[in-house]
């Protein structure tokens, strides 16, 4: 582990130099469509947090847009709005909106479609997971939105000003100084108006348990993702706040168990950001803050880990008899000069290839928050930083 950490820091210090790991990983050939979805003239995406497709090829996009609002007039400010979910057909034509005016679409995080074509929406701010049926009716809710917000925000820490991230001293000779050098590649937010959005979560105590263990319940703290096993059991990655755990519920939403707490040991998490389950029921957790993927069985028993995937912030697994995983080594939206490539990985953790880098033009990616494995050669990416959905087509790549 120590060696791995040193290697990771060294690689980050190089920042723009090619990642050492990539040198031995084949570059995959790919094309990208950056406007696969046709929005009506008066609509725009904001930060695109989630993208998913159903069995018919309909596309669902969960985006942070509109005006996140706190209402005045009471000692308790209430939060409203800030995110919307749009639906498109398989040709990319806009169909409509799901959840418009609903109670808990505040800060989009993920959208997933289950095998029955139900649409699951993960909202990071309202701490809820909303299941809609294919017609857009709410079927089930996990979690509960806080009744009101605290102003200033409860426990709002000053922005971690990590070493680097600055633009260098002013004056005539200022070059691009201050590359992000810390292990958490977060740029300082611009000015005092914004704190570092990826300030480390974790450390909270769930009902007297160890830090980040959460409670035996569906009280989430900035949850990030949801997935299901073949039996329909529900697994929630929870999250970026005080909890650092995976919570398991049965298909009816009854709490079964949770595992994990804040930390770096096997079975512990720092910022679990994405979760996927393979055909055998193994649970893959993108443990972004620890720069690894951890693998568990359905009861939470630790199996193995992948340490060669950068900072995994989004993962997906293809369906079919021979499954592969795509892993986004996402940059943060505040810095496009680090990371940003996507790995293709087999389920033992072997790197099959890599493609892309951070940036704003086509075939570059900016802070991918969700990957949708439509097929092994068709992957959709939700980009926080570019406010867009990219449809990726991989071409002529030998698989092994």
């Amino acid at each position, binding site marked *: 582990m120590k060696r791995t950490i040193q290697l990771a820091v060294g690689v980050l210090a190089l920042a723009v130099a090619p990642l050492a790991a990539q040198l031995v990983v084949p570059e995959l050939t790919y094309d990208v469509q950056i406007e696969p979805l046709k929005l009506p003239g008066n609509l725009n995406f904001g930060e695109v947090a989630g993208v998913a497709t159903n069995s018919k090829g309909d596309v669902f996009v969960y985006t942070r847009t509109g005006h996140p609002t706190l209402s005045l007039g009471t000692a308790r400010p209430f939060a409203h709005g800030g995110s919307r979910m749009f639906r498109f057909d398989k040709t990319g034509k806009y169909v409509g909106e799901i959840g418009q005016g609903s109670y808990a679409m505040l800060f989009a995080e993920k959208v997933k479609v289950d095998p029955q074509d139900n649409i699951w929406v993960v909202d990071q701010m309202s701490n809820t997971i909303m299941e809609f049926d294919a017609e857009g009716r709410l079927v089930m809710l996990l979690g509960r939105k806080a009744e009101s917000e605290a102003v200033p925000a409860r426990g709002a820490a000053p922005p971690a000003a990590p070493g680097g991230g600055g633009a260098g001293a002013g004056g005539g000779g200022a070059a691009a100084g201050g590359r992000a050098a810390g292990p958490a590649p977060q740029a*300082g937010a611009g000015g005092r*108006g914004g704190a570092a959005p990826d300030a480390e979560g974790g450390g909270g105590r769930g009902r007297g348990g160890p830090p980040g263990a959460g409670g035996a319940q569906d009280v989430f703290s900035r949850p990030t993702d949801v997935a299901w096993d073949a039996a329909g059991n529900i697994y929630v990655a929870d999250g970026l706040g005080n909890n650092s755990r995976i919570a398991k519920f049965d298909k009816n939403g009854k709490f079964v168990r949770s595992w994990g707490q804040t930390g770096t040991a096997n079975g512990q998490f720092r910022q679990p950001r994405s979760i996927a389950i393979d055909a055998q029921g193994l649970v893959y957790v993108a443990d972004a803050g620890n720069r690894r993927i951890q693998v568990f069985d359905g009861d939470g028993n630790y199996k193995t880990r992948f340490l060669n995937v950068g900072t995994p912030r989004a993962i997906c697994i293809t369906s079919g008899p021979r499954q592969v995983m795509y892993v986004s080594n996402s940059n943060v939206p505040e810095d496009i000069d680090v990371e940003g490539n996507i790995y293709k990985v087999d389920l033992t953790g072997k790197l099959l290839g890599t493609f892309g880098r951070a940036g704003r033009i086509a075939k570059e990616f900016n802070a991918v928050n969700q990957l949708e494995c439509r097929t092994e050669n068709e992957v959709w990416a939700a980009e926080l930083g570019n406010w867009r959905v990219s449809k990726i087509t991989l071409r002529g790549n030998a698989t092994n």
Partner: protein
Amino acid sequence: MRRALSVPLAAALVLYALPAFAQVKATAQNVPEIPYDSVPNFLKLPPGRYLGEAIGVATNSKGHVFVYTRSANTQLFEFDQNGTFVREIGPGAYNFEFAHSVRVDPQDNIWVVDEGTNTITRFNPEGHITLVLGRRPPAVQGMLQAPLPGPKPPAAKYTFGRPTDVAWDPQGNIFISDGYVNHRVVKFDKNGRFVKQVGSQIPGGEPSQFSTPHGIAVDLNGNVYVADRGNNRMQVFDNNLVLKNIYDNIGVSWTVCISPGPHQYLFTSNSNPNGNTPGSWDITGEIYKMELDGTILGKFGHAGKQLGGFQVVHMMDCRNPDQIFVAEIESWRAQKLLLKPATGTPVRPTTTAAR
């Protein structure tokens, strides 16, 4: 003004407290007057729509007029060349919170600078977002204390602190004035990758420092003109952000624009301060027309709330140098001005201050 430059901190405090006094000292004398008319009711809004603080105004190649306004929500309106309302662009877009600037690039993309969301966003002519610089502070963090405790973090490459304006050079490189929290100018390449900055998160009055850089424009040679509002001056940089000139006889320099074409003109507004302070109307409010080298060709306008007067000009468009659009804060309007030839002797620059 030289003294002010040598004791920037004290001067900045004095200037802040006594803007009128400072501005009258800092304006050139015997400047020719440029006669002008203001077109009455040029922008025609449909019933139920209003301009608020009309913070930004810009025109495209067809003469369409874009106004970025602080209405009930911050909104971006498009009018045609006759002032007829065409549409609202991007209603409810994620980058709209507190308008600051709108500019139209040579490809007719519409760029908006929003100081409430710390973003610079490019809309294509159809009204869809195609580029985003900066990041809106995530709502999930809740309402943060401002200013946050502790030392001010260094300005980062890709995030802004209440940015103010945007401009491009002929190669498409992007220049951003940033702003009220940071005090710098940042250069990005046309793909939005950081190249360089001048200034920092700290305000200052020395050459190449800024105190609220509030407007920016680039000429055909790639030189960068920055309205250094808090320092009562304009600073001119080459394309690599190396200082070339300081023009400090034009008042407060709230905003700047440069006309296109082979002979370019520079306009800057000595806007009267918000709040209509006693005496301020007498000595502020005029707009200067200049050569790029700092020669003042003339001035026009004055503080005032009636049509033809200016109540805090926030931004100008000078795509046609004889037909200027001005957007005002405290009159909730954008005026179309028709300039007539000036008579009189241009005023040569007094300070060419590449120091």
